[in-house]
């Protein structure tokens, strides 16, 4: 039994750079680093960047995850230091209401207006 468990370890000595207990944590890590901005790069995520700072921050995030910190705690930790600029998903504030709801509002209003306009036109024709 022990032999069987060890077997994969022998065959695949290579290991993940950031090792997690579960697949979910691995996925969390990818998702989190994929939504944060590398500050020194022109426009890249922490996950994609080769910059030194990006690698340091990935390490910090990994450490925090191992310590059992939640996504929110980790993000708050980074925002405290680098500001909201580090988030590729801007938080919903008073200043970003237009950003988050504007497009949907615009879609509803413009389709509503369009339908109203077509009907009105028809009635006038009659």
């Amino acid at each position: 039994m022990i032999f069987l468990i060890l077997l994969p370890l022998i065959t695949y000595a290579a290991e993940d750079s950031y090792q997690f207990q579960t697949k979910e944590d691995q996925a969390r890590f990818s998702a989190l680093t994929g939504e944060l901005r590398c500050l020194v790069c022109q426009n890249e995520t922490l996950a994609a960047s080769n910059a030194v700072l990006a690698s340091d921050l990935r390490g910090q995030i990994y450490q925090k995850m191992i310590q059992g910190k939640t996504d929110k705690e980790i993000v708050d930790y980074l925002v405290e230091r680098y500001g909201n600029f580090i988030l590729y998903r801007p938080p919903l504030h008073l200043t970003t209401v237009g950003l988050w709801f504007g497009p949907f509002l615009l879609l509803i209003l413009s389709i509503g207006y369009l339908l109203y306009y077509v009907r009105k036109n028809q009635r006038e024709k009659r």
Partner: protein
Amino acid sequence: MIPELGSFALILALCFALIQGTIRSELTVNAVFGQFTFLSFAMLCLIISFINNDMSVIYVREHSHHLLPFIYRVGAAWGGHEGSLLLWCLVLSAWTFAFIIFSDKKLSKTTFSTILMILGWMSAGFILFLLSTSNPFQRDFPLSPIIGNDLTPVLQDPGLIFHPPMLYSGYVGFAIAFAFAIAALLEGKFNKEWARALRPWIILPWSFLSFGIVLGSWWAYRELGWGGWWFWDPVENASLLPWLAATALLHSLIVSEKRSAFKGWTLLLAIITYALSLLGTFLVRSGVLVSVHAFANDPRRGLFLLGYIALIIGGALALYSIRIKKFFKPSQFQLFSRETFLLINSVILLTAVATITLGTLYPIVLEALNLEKISIGEPYFNTVFVPIMLPALLLMGLAPHVHWEKQSFLALWKKMGLALLLSLLLAFLLPWSLGYPFGFLTWMGISLGLWILLSTLQSLLKQKTGLNHWAMIVAHMGIAILVIGVSVNKSYSEERQVKMQPGESIMLAGYQFTFDSLDKTKGPNFESIKANFTVGNEPISAEQRIYPHDQTLGKTGIIFNGWRDLYLALGNSLPDGNWSIRIYYKPCVRWIWFGGFMLLIGGMISLLNHYQKRRGAL
């Protein structure tokens, strides 16, 4: 001597552009020809300066190196701001030239010459911009021997040769549609003939732009080394915006041509499309945004471009406001009709345009108001743009089956209900039977892709299929394949970032990657460390290259078939003797680009139809 000739050619081209813009006569045709000749000559001079490694030319010095391989020295001619701007001018004059040769002879002489004059002013503005702020031929002669700065390694790729010319042929080409619209507004005339004459000048640049965007995505995928093919970077948005507007324009024009409706809307879309092309140019070249591909910036350039855009587009929109009444005609269609569907589609596409513009410019708004500094990236666009586009995909499968003027809902349901239910079911069963987990968005995406595919195929069954219909079928199926590709890729990609050394293996998505050996190799202008892997029996290798001036670049290794890509990127060497390696499993990623390629094919078929008809008519 050659750079001076190039500068001189630019000045002559400017003179010709001014003649083209001011004189209404048969002779303007010669001015177009002269301008095209001298701009081509200037481009040739620039390329020759690169080939000769003429480092006294500042632009060459900053974008080349004496070790740079020949083919990239040619491509480097448009690898920076100045040269790519020259390419822009050249492409514009090539379009104008093509317009003279191929334009519909039924177009009235006045309309024809008005269009040429408008294009003349547009060209003059850009050549003036080139000469006054961004002359690629500027020289100086430092005393010490000069070593070139080298072309950014990321650009040293075959993508550099094809992608920019293709992309520019796309969005610069919309200048013709823009000029058509202005001519129509000035003359107050917009009839069927006019719409037909305009059509190829929208289809062709739209096809080029579609394919140009695909080439860019493919290039970024191979170069950037993290398996992504779209990042919502401002430079990508700059090309997607005119594409979306042009897609709306294309459909609106069909209605204008066939049903003589939506005329005002078509004119507005033609202006918006070109405005977005210009906006994109401004965003990339002015330095107002942080992008992966920002050109070196100089505030004077931004100011010139902005003034120019304000003048041209502001003027066009003012003209539109004044003259649009003439084109108003009460509509002949009912609420439930193909016209309404196409209008809704236009509205959705424009909302998508507004969304991307908002997402791209919002950080500037907040900063200008001194409120906050934020980033807006992929997560935002995925959350907002995707749901907005979904209804457009639903309509896309439906609209070709809806009658003009009026349609009964029940008849439509009877006709299309089966295809709809079938696609919903298949989208559920297919991933399940292959053992993939269920995800709501994945299901929606695949359903919509299948729905477009099935309903498009269904339209083949009954209708008489002319070339135009085929063009629509191919293009819509292209979108269907793209949508399925995106959904599958976004949902089922896998990746691992690992530490390993030669001799070790790692599993990903059922594939065993074995690290065989590490080589040191030398290229024409770089030294490289190459990690050789095998997957099954297939070799795959990734590199880390070091170019002159210690610029490094990772070169990814990819093996692919129709279903999936296996992707390998080599990272840094670690102190413990391991190498940091990233491997990706990317299902259906090629479908995305193939779908985009089908848009080009669809466009070409439509063009073929256009010229066949024209020949028939003569």
